[in-house]
């Protein structure tokens, strides 16, 4: 588990409607089906993810897959943090 993965799991467990430990989140976990996320919770999670990683998540990024598989959401955040790093270096 890398640093971004760990921090993202912490955010997800903080916002979940159920008591949830970071270890219970697998790459196949569904935020909606497994952890009770609805649209409002997703918006709060997205806001805190943006603040935590200093990134911008746009509506084009909101593929249904990111709530159906944690791995997809993690990949999105990884790609955004990578883009930010490249942006800072250019």
């Amino acid at each position: 588990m890398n640093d971004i993965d760990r921090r993202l799991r912490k955010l997800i467990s903080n916002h979940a409607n159920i008591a949830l430990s970071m270890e219970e989140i697998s790459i196949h976990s569904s935020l909606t089906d497994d952890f009770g996320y609805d649209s409002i919770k997703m918006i709060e999670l997205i806001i805190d993810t943006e603040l935590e990683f200093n990134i911008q998540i746009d509506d084009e990024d909101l593929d249904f897959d990111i709530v159906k598989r944690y791995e997809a959401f993690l990949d999105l955040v990884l790609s955004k943090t990578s883009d930010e790093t490249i942006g800072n270096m250019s």
Partner: protein
Amino acid sequence: MNRLSRRLQKMIQVGYWPGFIIGMYPSHFAYKPIEVDFRRTWQHVKELNLYAHIPFCKWSCSFCTFFKVVKDDEEYYRRYMQRLNEEFIFYNTFFEEKVNIKSICFGGGTPNTVSVSDYEKFFDTLVKSNVSLDKDLEPSMEISPEIITKEYISDLSKIGIKRLSLGVQSLKGELRKGVNRDETLDILGVIQSIRDNGLNVNIDLINGIIGQDNDSFMETLKEVVAFGPETISIYPLSGKKSSMFKTSSAIMTTKEKYQLYELYYDYLIHNGYDCESHVKFIKKNQNSTHQQKIYEYLGTETLGIGSGSRSYSNLIHYGTSSWEDAKLVKKAIEDYMTKDFRELSWYGFEMNEEENKRRTIVYAWFLGVLDTAAYYQRYHSSPYEDFPEEFEALIHNDLVYTEGDKMHLTTKGRKYTDLAGTIFWSKGIHEMFETVHYA
């Protein structure tokens, strides 16, 4: 930027829509079992909106979540209307002064399942009661255009109904079939009969029906505009299939519904209509509209009668339908038909000054303008001081502008009226919403 402002910004960015539960505040999901002190609630009232609920339908439409039962029994309808009369007489005993009725609306269900003679008897009951009928009264009835006849429309006009609201939803046969409506509706014939009898017309449309896209919606809208109704009401389809995520090519996302709003707003503004609220467009140079909603937004209390209706007084909101036990509609109607009104199971929400303040503001956005001087006169405080974070969020997101004592929604604010309203919900209402919200 405060957290609320950021949340509102994100909601706008992703096209989040909470559903049309903003239509009333607090919404039905907040209702719990409650005791109603009828005398205390109604003894001092001087003016009222009157709403009567007719819960019967000949069939069920797939999108409908209203309180109704599928029943085809004219004798039962007649007995129900008799109870409606008795219920009004019951409330009449609490009025200490003559009450001016500012609006009358028959909703459902399908009000045109009931005979016109039963409505005539109901009006007789009103005339004999301790009420007066406002000079600008425009008695209004929701109707299902599939089952109405020319004779029925003519008879309604003779007993004093002045406005009919037609549940059309779409004029596309395949879309109507998809929501269990008659594909072959002769809407032009119905409207002609209404016009022949000098009545005003509202047409209800839905956007976001499964299989509908921008083109098919706009084609319906253009046909409707050609009929020239006094008002056009457009409701986005809500419920479990309404999502900010694209779950199916046949289902609009909430963001796509917002984009469609821009299309039809622009079309209607340039084709003879003004925007009265984000869901209602009113034909220019005339005054016919859904009076009851306007008066509610301005603060007139509403007495709801009939099984499934709701009353909105300054002290308490209540009705006989339970949010949790929606399946108990038949039992609720049976109880209404047989029990003393005091012994019915009532569900509701007790209002206080803070919730009334919030309601005033939420409803102001439906009218597109908050009169801060009128708010101060009523509550002896400034809305900006009462809710500073909320107003900061609206201003930061360009949803409002001020002119003197009035704060108006911008065009962007009109589009996001439901969001502008929900940020004024109390913490308790938000928490209740989270337990019932769809994903």
